[in-house]
């Protein structure tokens, strides 16, 4: 026998279930309880940079939209700094960089408004391409799924991104690139997340 290591084990994850909104978005569940719900304003009023809208669907293995998803976004500001003590530098007053959205119960569409993030430091050398970190929880998802949203119009940065480049199958990298369009003067990025099957989105073990 050897000595026992005294690390604790991480608490096991469980599904967020179909009523996740009660805890994390009670207004959507149908009642008003808190002075302010968290996660509705990612950038605050002072954020610099390009204002964008990000929208999409989460689609299951049968091709159906998942209508009880909650997504969380975590991103840097337009200069590539995260609002965190180890985040690289200062951010605008009021910039949190974190957001939370739920899907429409009828259509499954979700959307949030933010600013386009700047490039951030890579793990080793070089910079990461602009990206938004996403975390997806729902009924039927036992452990939250991590993915990243990159931007179609950042082709040069995407080509040298250290994370995209460790995905061995180049075809799969495309599942992480949001499509840019303009609607009523607003910049819109479309990002559908496919949980399973054809063109399944890349998910990360971070």
């Amino acid at each position, binding site marked *: 026998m050897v000595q026992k290591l005294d*690390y*604790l*084990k*991480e*608490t*096991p*994850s*469980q*599904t*967020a*279930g179909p*009523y996740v909104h*009660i*805890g994390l978005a*009670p207004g959507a*569940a*149908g009642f008003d*309880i808190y002075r*302010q719900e968290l996660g509705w304003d990612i950038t605050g009023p002072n954020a610099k940079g390009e204002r964008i809208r990000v929208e999409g669907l989460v689609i*299951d*293995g*049968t091709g*159906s939209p998942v209508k*009880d998803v909650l997504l*969380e976004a*975590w991103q840097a500001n337009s200069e590539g700094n*995260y*609002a*965190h*003590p*180890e985040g*690289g530098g200062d951010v605008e007053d009021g910039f*949190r960089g974190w957001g939370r959205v739920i899907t429409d*119960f009828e259509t499954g569409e979700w959307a949030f408004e933010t600013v386009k993030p700047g490039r*951030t*430091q*890579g*793990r*080793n050398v070089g910079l*990461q391409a602009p990206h938004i*970190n996403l*975390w997806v*929880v*729902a*009924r*039927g*998802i*036992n*452990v*939250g*799924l991590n993915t*990243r949203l990159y931007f179609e119009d950042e082709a040069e940065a995407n080509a040298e991104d250290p994370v995209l480049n460790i995905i061995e199958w180049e075809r799969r990298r495309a599942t992480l690139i949001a499509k840019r369009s303009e609607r009523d003067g607003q910049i819109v990025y479309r990002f559908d997340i496919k949980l*399973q*099957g054809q063109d*399944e989105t*890349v*998910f*990360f*073990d*971070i």
Partner: protein
Amino acid sequence: MTTKGEFYQRDREWQPPALTPDYKTSVARSPQYSLISLQNSVSEITGPVFGHNDIDPIDNDLILNYAKPGESPIGERIIVHGRVLDENGRPIPNTLVEAWQANAGGRYRHKKDTYLAPIDPNFGGCGRTVTDENGYYIFRTIKPGAYPWRNWVNNWRPAHIHMSIFGTAFTQRLITQCYFEGDPLIDKCPIVKTIPCQQGRDSLVAALDLNATIPLDTIAYKFDIVLRGRRSTVFENRLEGN
């Protein structure tokens, strides 16, 4: 010099796998390809920061936070409390803990819940708090009831409180469920059994904590939460590109 680096990798044999067919909804919502493993960059070792300004002191008291003045919800008055620790056993202070649950009869205040047990007019079912400097949190609530769900014809969830915890990094983000000591439904639940080993399942069961009860008032359960630990070593290298 000692610097903090990456987080310990998540033990995917300890955590539930994505595909757990006895929990039927997981079948079409589980990725088929393997996860791509990422060593942590700044995007993973950072995460949102919350403070006491974000929430109100009453938010952790589910007996009061949706009750009409002078009234209170029906059910077993309980305290659920514990510490948020990392895998090194260190407390995680100032981190947001959110909770949600059904009422004493197993009914959720949610427009999609149609179970025939009634809504309690004095019970909302959600709470939130920020851990103190020792990583300690506390909620006061009523003990939730079991409720039926459409999985097999006759499946009932054990009494449970959903918990959402942030930690200090996006890679520590966790949602789980707290069960209660002695509940015979725990061993029968396909969602509990998504967790592969018995020791892991047991770690989600809050213990009756008579030392923390308020005599003649409120019974107590203790539920500690462990988030991923982090390396702290002179050999940690190259996180910032040197």
